[in-house]
Every structure is written in C-alpha cells, then in structure tokens.
C-alpha cells in the first residue's frame, strides 16, 4: 500500500472507476478459488470444498462490515485499529484518507481481500472438517487474525509505520493464510485415508480454469492496491502478468527435469505461486526483477509441494507452499530489489538501503508466528466445544451428501421425488388408460 499525502481528499473519477472494477475482479477470485480447490479433491467432496470458499463470502463479508474493517483501518494504533467504523459507521462517499476514492469503495475493495483470505485456509481442512465448525472458525479468524494483520501490514499498524513494505497483502493475505493452514491441518488432523491410498484430484480441468480465473482476478487484486490508476497500480498490474508467466516457465522446466512430463495441475499451481510471489512486491520492484522473482521464487515452492506429502501433516491443498512460502519470499525479495526510481518510496539492499531488508525480515518472522499461534489456539478452542470432524463413515460417504444433501455429479438414477413441486399435479403414468 502506497502512502499518498493526506491532503488529497478530492475524489478522482478515473481512480474510482478502476477501483470499482478491481473490487469486482477480486470478489470473483473467491468462487475461482472454489473451482480450483473443488477440482483438486475427490468427486464426493467437490461441493463441500467449493462451499467452504463460497461461505467465506457470507461470513467474512458480514464480519468485515460489522467489525473487521474498523479494527483494520480505523486510525493508526500500533497493534489494532479503533471502533469508529464499527457497523459501517461513517463509511461514506467522502474520500478515504490518503486516497482519491470514496471510503465506501475502499471498504468494499478491502472486504474482498478478507473474504478470499478466509477461503484460502479451507484448503488445509477439506474432505474432513465439519461445515458448522468451519463457519464459526471463519467468522472468528477473519477478525482475530486477518483484521489484526491487515492493520499491521497496511492499516497504519506497527509494521507499516516501521517501514515494512507490503503492496497487496503478502502479510495479511498470503503469509497469514499459509501459516494458519498448517496450524489448521495439525489441529483438525489428517484425512483417514491420507498416506494409505492415493487421493487424487477428480477434475484437473476445473483446477486450470480456477487458476486462470484467479490470475484474471489478481490483476484487480494487485493492480487495485495502488488505490487508483497511478504509477504503482500500473507497475503492479504489469508485474502481475510477468511474474506468474516466469514462475509458470520455471515450473514446467522443473517438471521436465523430474519426470520428463509437464503436468497440468503443476501449471495451475505455478500460476498461483507466481501471483502470490508478486503480491507483496507488485508496486515496489521493476518489471525485470519481477521476472526474476517469478523464475527463482517458483523453485522453493516447487520443492515444498514435493516434500509436504511425505510428512504426516495433511495440509491437503498446499496452502503453505503456494501462499505461505511464496508470500514469505515475495516479502523478503522487496528488501533486496525495491527501487525508489520505480516505486517512489524506498530502495532495497541492492540499491543502497540495507535497512529495508531488516524491515521485511521482521514482517516475515512475526506474521507466521502470529498466524500459526492464533489459528492453533482458536481451533483448539472451537474443538473443545464441538467436534471439528465427523465420524469415519461420513468421511467415506463424502462431505457433499452429509453436509449439503447434494452431489456434484448425481447420476439421477434411483432418485425418487419426495415432495412434488407446489402447484403441479402429482406425476401420472403415461400409459394410464
């Protein structure tokens, strides 16, 4: 997030127009994530997995309006914002301080960030967590972890004030979700078949489609994080094209080296990893460095993903690798190659300001600890009140039938209508005389 001088309280129509579109783009990322995740699980859990993301829109959206936004963006307290904007109080057409867009738009744009961050964590617990506890977790996490980290990273909290640069959410979105995911996977426990039989993606086409839509939405996510159409947004927008393209290239090469085969699910993962890598750095580094970030950053992510299934932690859809690791790398990378000539804010180590690397390292250290710790405690607490997962036979039958009473791919055979549609006559055999 780029500090603009506070005098600019004039609404700019061009900036506002772009931010309206960017908000819609980012909201679309949550159903896109649902597609991505749903394709990666087994068919019997596809709807449940999708619904975990969709439900985040309802839950995190409400919590954000009620209290989350205020705690994140009201005032510049060190640890937490104020309560002035609780329940959308005073969120109006007036320009948000430091931007040229109405606060209403600023609020909506930030809401979509909170929503997708909550949805991201679901990747760690799919195929086994009960839906009720998930919704409760989502509600509390969005306030306890997201709002706090958003305040630290770009709401005027201590990290931002201390000089840490985070353009579009390497702290509050990527590292927060990635490291929370590990805690969630540990507390909820592994799927009963994990490590025993192969648990394969049921539809890799959905995975690629989801990844494509996420990338599309990410242009709003990063391109909108300059809150306008100025240089930072333009730079972040183009970097969002370059960095994922580079990481996709690296991933395909690594696949070739490993198995002589380029995988589709790997390509989808590489796109996400590339988008995450550039998220914190988008408006701070030159396009050349963005390419290098994508080329190099994909390598550690690739090996974290290759290694994780050999552990006993069933962090099912690798949120740690794709978001935690990539967000961590992106945040640190700023410390090396940020360029004041491109971003107008600060230089990194390579351009003479080694202190920036220290600021970045601080965020990269503190965020994972906070996210992991809070999520661990929160889920333990919820688990003490209600079971986090159902009995084993439910897991065998699949979450879709148990928690939603629907199937993603019903055969339609053997389904007997119980209550005829109101107003229609009961079906009559055709052959009646």
């Amino acid at each position, binding site marked *: 997030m780029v500090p603009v001088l506070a005098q600019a309280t004039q609404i700019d129509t061009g900036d506002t127009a772009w931010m309206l579109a960017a908000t819609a783009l980012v909201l679309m990322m949550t159903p896109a994530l649902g597609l991505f995740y749903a394709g990666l699980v087994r068919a019997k859990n596809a709807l449940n997995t999708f619904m975990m993301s969709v439900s985040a829109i309802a839950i995190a959206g409400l919590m954000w309006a009620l209290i989350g936004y205020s705690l994140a963006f009201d005032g510049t307290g060190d640890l937490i914002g104020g309560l002035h904007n609780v329940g959308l109080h005073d969120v109006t057409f007036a320009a948000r301080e430091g931007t040229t867009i109405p606060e209403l738009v600023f609020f909506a744009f930030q809401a979509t960030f909170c929503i997708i961050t909550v949805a991201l964590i679901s990747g760690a617990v799919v195929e086994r967590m009960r839906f009720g506890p998930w919704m409760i977790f989502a509600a509390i996490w969005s306030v306890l972890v997201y709002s706090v980290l958003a305040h630290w990273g770009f709401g005027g909290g201590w990290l931002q004030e201390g000089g840490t640069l985070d353009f579009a959410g390497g702290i509050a979105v990527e590292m927060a979700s990635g490291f929370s995911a590990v805690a969630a996977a540990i507390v909820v426990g592994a799927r009963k*078949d994990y490590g025993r039989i192969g648990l394969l993606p049921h539809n890799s086409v959905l995975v690629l489609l989801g990844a494509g839509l996420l990338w599309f939405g990410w242009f709003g996510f990063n391109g909108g994080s300059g809150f306008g159409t100025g240089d930072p947004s333009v730079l972040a927008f183009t970097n969002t094209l370059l960095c994922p393209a580079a990481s996709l290239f690296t991933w395909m090469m690594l696949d070739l080296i490993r198995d002589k085969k380029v995988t589709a699910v790997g390509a989808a993962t590489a796109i996400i990893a590339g988008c995450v890598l550039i998220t914190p750095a988008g408006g701070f580094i030159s396009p050349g460095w963005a390419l290098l970030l994508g080329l190099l950053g994909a390598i550690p992510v690739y090996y974290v993903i290759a290694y994780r299934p050999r552990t006993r932690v069933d962090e099912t859809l690798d949120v740690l690798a794709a978001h935690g690791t990539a967000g961590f790398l992106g945040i640190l990378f700023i410390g090396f190659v940020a360029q004041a000539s491109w971003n107008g804010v600060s230089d990194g180590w390579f351009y003479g300001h080694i202190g920036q690397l220290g600021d970045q390292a601080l965020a990269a250290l503190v965020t994972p600890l906070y996210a992991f710790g809070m999520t661990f405690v929160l889920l333990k607490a919820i688990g003490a009140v209600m079971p986090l997962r159902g009995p084993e036979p439910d897991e065998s039958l699949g979450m879709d039938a148990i928690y939603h*009473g*629907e199937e993603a791919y019903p055969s339609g055979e*053997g*389904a*007997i*209508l*119980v209550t005829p549609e109101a107003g229609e006559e009961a079906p009559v055999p055709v052959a009646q005389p």
Partner: protein
Amino acid sequence: MKLVIGIVRPERANDVLEALYRAEVRGISMSRVQGHGGELDRVETYRGSTVKVEVTDKVRFEIGVSDDFVQATVDAICDGARTGQVGDGKIFVVPVERVVRIRTGETDEAAVTPVSA
C-alpha cells in the same frame, strides 16, 4: 473354474485389491455400479425438489479363478470390504463353462489365474 463376483463399497475397493494381491489372486476386472443393499436412503434437495436416492455407488469385482482358489478369493474380498455396517456388499460365486485367454489361446484352467494352486 468359478467366477467370483464381489460387490463392495467404493471406499473399500483399495483394501480389497490389496487383500487380493496378498492372497496371490491375479487377473481381475472392476467396474463402477450402482445398487441398493438395504442401507438407509439418502435424502437430497436441489432447489425445490427433494429426492430420496435409493441407489448407492458400489464397485463390482469379477475374478475368474481355478477351484482351489475360490475360498482364498472370497476370504480376501471379505477381509478387504467388511466395515460391519449395512451396505458392505455381497459375493457371488458362479460356475464357468469355458475360459479362453485371448493372447495365447489357452483355455479353461490354464487360462485363469493362478494356474497352480
């Protein structure tokens, strides 16, 4: 020669395969089928339509074996497929008139696995 047909829960299919492998039974076919084995119906709702789904997904194994291997095969399927809940499935053993291995033209006992018991 007998044809052993086992209808089991899809989530137990891997365990059945493993048990069959350990019993040294080779040469199987499996297919996805739908059936009803007395388990509870699932109720599903799509918008205004509530339906009772009477059939459940099952996996059907078909294994041609020599007489000496019938019991081993049946035991292996039982071991792999049993959960103790209604809906575990059934095994049918039916006589086979003739078997031909297409590649070699071998017939009957020579064509089913395993040959030597």
